[in-house]
C-alpha cells in the first residue's frame, strides 16, 4: 500500500529548509506510520533532491509526524532555480512511499 492511503501531508518552507507533515487520517494508523515512515526511508526517498539532514518529530497529540529536511530547496525560495522554488510539491513525493499493509487488528 501507499502512505497516501492512510495519511495526508502539507509542505512548508523556511529559508533552505523544507518541512513535510504526515498526518494519519485515522489516529489508529499512527503507530503503523510511526513504525514505517522512518528517517532512513524518508532520507533515501529525498536523497536525489535534498543534501541535508533529515529530522523526524513525533506529534502523537495530533497523530502526526513532522519531517524537517535541510538543504532541500536549492538555496531557498528567494534564490532557487527550481520551478517549484518553495518545494510545495514535495509532500506528493512523500505520500507515494510504499508501506507494508497494517496487520489485521494491529492498527493501534
Amino acid at each position, binding site marked *: 500500500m501507499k502512505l497516501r492511503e492512510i495519511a495526508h501531508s502539507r509542505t512548508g518552507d523556511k529559508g533552505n529548509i523544507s518541512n513535510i507533515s504526515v498526518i494519519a487520517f485515522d489516529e489508529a494508523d499512527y503507530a503503523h506510520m510511526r513504525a514505517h515512515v522512518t528517517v532512513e526511508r524518508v532520507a533515501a526517498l529525498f536523497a536525489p533532491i535534498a543534501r541535508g539532514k533529515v529530522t523526524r518529530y513525533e506529534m502523537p497529540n495530533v497523530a502526526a509526524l513532522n519531517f524537517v529536511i535541510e538543504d532541500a530547496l536549492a538555496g531557498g525560495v528567494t*534564490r532557487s532555480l527550481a*520551478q517549484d522554488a518553495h518545494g510545495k510539491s*514535495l509532500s506528493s513525493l512523500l505520500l507515494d512511499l510504499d508501506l507494508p499493509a497494517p496487520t489485521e487488528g494491529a492498527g493501534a
Partner: protein
Amino acid sequence: MRTIRLGAGAGYSGDRIEPAIELAEKGALDYLVFECLAERTIALAQQARLKDPASGFDPLLAARMRAVLPICARNGVKVVTNMGAANPAAAARATRTLAREVGLANLRVAAVTGDDVLAQLRASDAALDNGGRISTLGNRIVSANAYIGAKPIADALAAGADVVITGRAADPALFLGPLIHEFGWAMDDWTMLGKGTVVGHLLECAGQITGGYFADPGVKDIPDLARLGFPIGEVREDGQLVVTKVAGSGGSVTSRTVKEQLLYEIHDPKLYYQPDVVADFSQVRVEEIGPDRVRVTGGAGAPKTGLLKTSVGYVDSFIGEGQISYAGPNAVARGKLALEIVRERLALTGVRASETRYELIGVDSLHGAASIARDPYEVRVRVAGRTETLEEAARIGNEVETLYTNGPAGGGGAWKSAREIVAVASTLTPEGAARPSVSFAD
C-alpha cells in the same frame, strides 16, 4: 467568559480580497487581520522605496482598505496588517488619506516602525543561515528587518488605533497583539503568549485552514473552493480557540485542515521561536465540535530567547530561463534532444553560469531524479541558469528560443525571461537592536 473574534483577511500579499469583504460584513468580527509579507517582500519594497520615498508598502493596500474600511467602521471592526512592508509610516498616511475620501474623517491609523535594523547590522559581522557573513555581502545588502513582536501592536490599540500597520512583524504577532490588548495578558505570561501564538499561527495563512492548499479530488474533497471563505478564530480569555468561517462561504474547516496548518512551516513542535515567546505545539488538541467548527486547546509556551530572527535582503545574482514545448509521439525524446542542444550551445558560446537546471516539465522538473518515469503526451523543456550578469542570463533564454528553427521537430510556445535576484538570508539580532515605536498618521 469573554470571547474575541479575529478574522484573517489575507494569507499573502496577492491574496483574494472578496473573502475579507465577506468577513467584514458577516463575520461579527472584532478584528480583521491581513498578513501580506513573505520572506522577500520587504527587500523588494525597500528597493521601491529607494526610488520613491512615498512608496515601499503593499501595492494592494489601497484596494484592500477601500474595500473593507467603510464596512469595518460600520461594524466596529479594527484592522491589523503588516502591509506597511518597508514603509509603514507612508502606508499609514495613504490609509488616512483614503479614509477621508470614503468619509471616515476620524479614523485613527497607527504605524508601527522600528523593525529596520540595517544600520545596526552593518556595524556587526553576524553569521547568516546560508553560511556567509554580513561583511561578505558588502554593498549588495538591500535591507535588514527584524521580526518584531506583538507588544507595539497592543500598544497602538491601547492608544486608540482603529487601524494598525506594521512592517516586518512575526506573522502570529498580528493576531497575538489584539489578544494581549483585549485580555490584558502579561508579556511574561508564557503560557498565554504560547496559546495566542497557536491562534496566530493557525490563522495567518487565511484560506490554508479553510480548505485551501488541501483538496485532492476523490481523496480529500473540499466543497465550493471557488468561493473559499477565510477563517474566523473565536478566542476565549483562557486562550481556547474555535476555528470557523462565515456560514455559506466556500471551503470547510475540519480537524484535518486544522492539523495540516498546525504543522505548516514548523520544525521542532516544542520550540516554535517567536519574538515574544517560545511556543510549544506538542500538547495541542484538535477536536471537531460542529460543522465547520474545530476547537483547539493545549498550546503552551516558554520564555523568549531575547533574539529576533532578522531577514537580510541582498542582490544575489541573475537568473535566465527559457521554455519550449513538444507534444505527441516521441515528445520526451525530442525534449531530451532539445536540452542537450542547449547545453552544448551555452558551452560553445561561453555563457558562464554557476548553477544550471536542464529539465522536462511533465517528467522531472519538480522532483528531479526522484521522479517516477511515466511518458506523458506532452513535455515542456526548461533550462535555467544563475549568472553574474543580466546579459548572460538573457542568453540562456535565447538559446531555448532558437530551438524553434535550430532544434528538434515541432517545438512550440517558447518563452524566456532574465531577471535580477534579490535573495534573503537570515540571522539573529539581539532584541535591543530593534526599537519598535507607534505613531499616528495626521
